[in-house]
C-alpha cells in the first residue's frame, strides 16, 4: 500500500494543514461545570497533536449556555474563555498541529444540559426530540437572530484566541440540523418548508461569521448529508435526500465556506454515526444518568434493560454498519458532495486503515478524513502510518464503549480486549489526569 496520498498538505481556504488526517470533534467531560476549561482538556488534546494528526477539531464548544449538549465542556460563550483556548492552541501548535474550534448550539439535542439551562432547548420546532423526548421551544425570528449573533461572537472570540479556524457543528441533530432537516423542521415561515428556507439559518450564520472574521480565517461546516431518521425510528420520515443536501452544500460554499465536513444522521448517536456495536451493558450502565433529561428516557431505559427488547434494539441499531461496512461508511455521500463543490471535503466514519484512507483520497471521494474513536484507541495512529503501518496492531473495534461510558466516567477506550488486563485499561484511561497541575504550580493563579 502507499500512504503517499495521506501525507500531502491540504489547503482549507487560508489554512494549510500538513497532511490529510484530522482528529474529529470528541470530548469527554473534562472541564468545569460552568464551561471554564481545565488543564485536563489541554493534555487530552495535546496527546493527539503529539500522535501526529494534522489538525485537531475541538470538542463541541457551546456558543451559549442554552446550547450545551452535556455539562463539563469548555465553552466559548464569553470573552472570559478566550485565554483558555489561547493556551490550548499554544500547546497544540507545539506539535506542528493546527487547531480548529467546533462551535455548537445543541438546540433541543441536550443530553445533560445542566442547571443553567431552561427546561426546553431552542429548536426549529416545538416537537420534542423523538428518541429521548428532550423538550423544545420553537425559535421566533428574533431568537434566530440572537443565536446567529452568538455564533458570530463565538467565532470572533475563537479568532482572538488564535485558533486556526472554526467549524460549525451542523450535523448529528444539532440546531443547524434541526433547521436543515425536512424530518424535523416543521416551520411555515421563511426558515421552514422549501430546501432554500430550511437552509436559510445555516447560510445566514455562515455569511454573518464570514463578515465578522474576514476572508483570511478558515471556516468549515459539518453537515449530515443524509438524516436517515428512519434508521433510528422506523416510523419517522428519512429526512433530507442526498440531492437536497448537495444543494445546501453549494449554497453554504457560496456563503463563504472554506471546507465541508461530511457526516450522516439526524440525531446523535445514530446507527451510522458512530457506526458499530451497541454495547448493551455499557448503555444500561450509563443511560440512567440522562433519564431526567427527557420524557421518553425512562421508557428507553427499561427497554435497554429488558431482554429480548434490548437484543432486538441492538440488532436494529447495528444493521446499517453490518450492511454497509463501518470504515468509510460515509464515503458515498462525501463523493457526491465533492463532485458538486469546489472547496475541500472532509469525511468522518470509522477510518483507521492507511490504504483505505489513501484510496479514498486518490479516487477523489474526499480530500481528507477525520477520525475519532480509532484515535481514542490509538492516539499515535498517524505516526504509525508515517512509519509504514497500514493499521494499528490493536485497532479500534468499533465497540462504542467509549461513547457509552463518557457521560459518567472519563472518556477513553473501554474495550478490555485491547489491553493485557482490566487494571492496565483503568491505568490507561486515568492517565489523562497525570498532567493535572500540582497546587504549588497553580498558586497565585487565583486572587479570590
Amino acid at each position: 500500500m502507499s500512504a503517499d496520498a495521506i501525507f500531502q498538505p491540504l489547503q482549507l481556504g487560508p489554512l494549510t494543514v500538513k497532511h490529510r488526517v484530522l482528529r474529529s470533534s470528541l470530548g469527554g467531560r473534562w472541564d468545569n461545570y460552568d464551561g471554564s476549561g481545565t488543564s485536563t482538556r489541554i493534555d487530552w488534546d495535546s496527546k493527539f497533536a503529539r500522535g501526529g494528526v494534522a489538525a485537531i477539531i475541538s470538542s463541541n464548544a457551546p456558543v451559549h449556555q442554552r446550547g450545551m449538549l452535556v455539562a463539563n465542556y469548555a465553552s466559548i460563550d464569553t470573552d472570559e474563555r478566550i485565554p483558555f483556548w489561547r493556551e490550548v492552541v499554544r500547546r497544540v501548535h507545539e506539535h506542528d498541529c493546527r487547531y480548529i474550534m467546533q462551535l455548537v448550539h445543541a438546540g433541543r439535542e441536550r443530553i445533560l444540559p445542566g442547571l443553567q439551562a431552561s427546561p426546553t432547548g431552542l429548536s426549529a420546532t416545538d416537537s420534542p426530540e423523538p428518541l429521548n423526548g428532550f423538550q423544545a421551544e420553537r425559535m421566533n425570528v428574533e431568537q434566530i437572530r440572537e443565536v446567529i449573533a452568538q455564533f458570530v461572537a463565538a467565532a470572533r472570540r475563537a479568532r482572538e484566541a488564535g485558533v486556526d479556524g472554526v467549524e460549525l457543528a451542523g450535523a448529528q441533530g444539532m440546531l443547524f440540523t434541526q433547521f436543515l432537516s425536512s424530518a424535523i423542521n416543521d416551520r411555515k415561515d421563511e426558515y421552514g418548508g422549501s430546501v432554500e428556507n430550511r437552509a436559510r439559518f445555516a447560510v445566514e450564520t455562515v455569511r454573518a461569521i464570514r463578515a465578522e472574521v474576514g476572508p483570511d480565517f478558515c471556516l468549515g461546516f459539518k453537515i449530515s448529508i443524509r438524516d436517515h431518521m428512519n434508521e433510528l425510528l422506523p416510523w419517522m420520515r428519512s429526512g433530507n435526500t442526498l440531492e437536497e443536501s448537495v444543494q445546501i452544500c453549494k449554497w453554504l460554499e457560496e456563503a463563504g465556506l472554506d471546507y465541508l465536513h461530511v457526516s450522516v444522521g439526524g440525531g446523535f448517536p445514530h446507527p451510522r454515526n458512530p457506526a458499530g456495536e451497541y454495547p448493551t451493558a455499557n448503555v444500561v450502565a450509563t443511560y440512567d444518568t440522562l433519564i431526567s433529561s427527557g420524557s421518553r428516557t425512562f421508557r428507553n431505559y427499561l427497554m435497554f434493560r429488558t431482554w429480548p427488547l434490548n437484543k432486538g434494539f441492538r440488532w436494529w441499531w447495528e444493521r446499517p454498519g453490518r450492511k454497509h461496512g463501518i470504515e468509510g461508511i460515509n464515503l458515498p455521500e462525501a463523493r457526491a458532495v465533492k463532485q458538486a463543490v469546489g472547496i475541500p471535503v472532509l469525511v468522518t466514519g470509522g477510518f483507521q486503515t492507511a490504504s483505505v484512507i489513501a484510496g479514498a483520497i486518490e479516487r477523489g471521494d474526499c480530500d481528507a478524513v477525520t477520525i475519532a474513536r480509532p484515535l481514542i484507541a490509538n492516539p499515535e495512529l498517524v505516526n504509525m502510518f508515517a512509519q509504514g503501518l497500514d493499521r494499528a496492531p490493536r485497532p479500534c473495534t468499533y465497540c462504542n464503549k467509549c461513547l457509552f461510558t463518557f457521560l459518567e466516567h472519563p472518556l477513553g477506550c473501554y474495550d478490555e480486549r485491547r489491553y493485557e488486563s482490566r487494571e492496565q485499561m483503568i491505568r490507561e484511561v486515568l492517565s489523562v489526569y497525570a498532567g493535572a497541575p500540582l497546587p504549588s504550580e497553580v498558586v497565585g493563579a487565583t486572587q479570590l
Partner: protein
Amino acid sequence: MNDGAQAAIFEPLRFRNLTVKNRLFRSSISGRFDNYDGSGTQTRIDWDVKFARGGIGTIISSNSPLHPRGLIVPNYAHLDDDDKIAFWREIGRRVHEHDCAYIAQIAFSGRQRDVGGIQYEKGLSSTAKPEPIHGLQCERMTVQQIQEVVDAFAQAARRVREAELDGVEIHGCNGYLITQFLSPAINDRTDDYGGALENRARFALEIVRAVRAAIGDDFHLQFKISAVDDNDALFPWAGKGTTLEESIQVCKWLEEAGVDGFHISAGNSFPHPRNPAGGWPIEDVIRSYDTMLSSGTRTLRNYVLFRTPPVNRIFKWRWEKVARDRIEGINLPLARAVKQAVSVPVICAGGFQTASVIGGAIADGSVDGVSMGRPLIANPDLANMFAQGLDRAPKPCTYCNKCLINFIENPLGCYEESRYSSHDEMVRQILSVFQGAPLPAEVT
C-alpha cells in the same frame, strides 16, 4: 443573642495536641470538585477557603478515600498515595491564611459506594450482604484485607501529617466501613471481628492504634462516630443496631487507644432520616437518583417508588417524621451522654445554625463544639455573622436537603430557590465556585 452564647462560641477549644480559635467546625461536606482519579483541583481549594474566610475555626475536609476501592463517589481528592501530599499541603496553606485549622477526614466507604467508579466492581465490607437500600454489592473482607485497610488508614494519616495539616479525623460513622464493623445490624461475622461488641470494635481500635503509631503522640486525632444506628428509622421491622450504651463503651475504648476528640453523628446509613435531618425533596430526588440506577440491585425499585405518587409522598412523610420535632441539635442528647463518659472534647453534628442554641449547648456542658454542613453551604459567613452579634443568618438554611440530593449530578451548593431573589441568582451563586479556576497560561 446573649453575650454568654457568643463568648462560649468564640472561646478557643483545646484538644490535647491542637487548639482552635472557636467552637465552630465545618463538617465534612464536599461536592464532586476533583479529578476522577482522585487528584485534587483548584476548585476544591477555593471551596474550602470560602468557609475559612467565613470565620469557621476548623475545617474538616471532604471525605478523603485512603484507597480507590474506598471511594464513596468519584471526583473527591484522595489520600491514597504520597503523590497527593502536595495538593493537601496547598489546601492547608490557603486555609491557614484565614487563621483556620484544617483536619483531614480519612475515609473508606466499604459497601456504601453510591457511585463506585470504574476501578472496582464491588466494595469491601464486614459482610457479604449487599447494602440494603440501594443493593450495593460487596465482598466480605478477609483478615488479610482487614490488615491491609488498617495499614492504609495509617499511611493516609501519615500523609496528613506530612502535608502539615492540623489533624486527622477517622470517618467511623454513617454506615461507611467502620460502621459496617461496629453495627450489629450489619456485621454478621463469626470471627474475631464480629459478634460481641469487643469484636465489632476491634477493627476501629486497630485503626486508631495504627494511625496513632504512624502520626506520633503529638498530632491531633479525632474519631467521628454514629452514637446510635437507628437502623429501624425507616423500616420498623429491622433491628435497632448499635445502642448509645454500646457506643459509649466503644468511645471509652477508642479514647484509651489514643483518640483526642469525638465527633458525634447518628445513623448507620447515608443519608439517614436523622442525618442530615430534614426534608426529602421529591423533585430533586427524581432528577438526581437516576445516576445511581447502575450502582445497585435495588435502585430501579427505589427510583420507581420515588417517582410514583402516592408512594413517594408516603416515603417523604416517613422520612421527615423522624426529625419532625427537632432538627437543630438533634444529636445533642447523644453528644452529652458521650461527653459524660469520656475526658476528651466532644463535638457534635446536626443542623446547628443558631448562636444561642450552640452557645447554650456548650455552656450547659453538652458539647465542646459543633460541626455544621448544610447551614454553611447556605451561609458560608455564618461564623462572622455570629461574631457580629447575629443569632441566626437572615436567610437561614431550610434543611430542605436539596444540596445533598443535587451534588451527585450538579455542583454542590444551596439549591433552595426560596433563599434567592431568582433562579438565575441561585445558579450564579452555585457556579461561582469555579470562578477561581486557574487560567491555563498560569498553570503551565
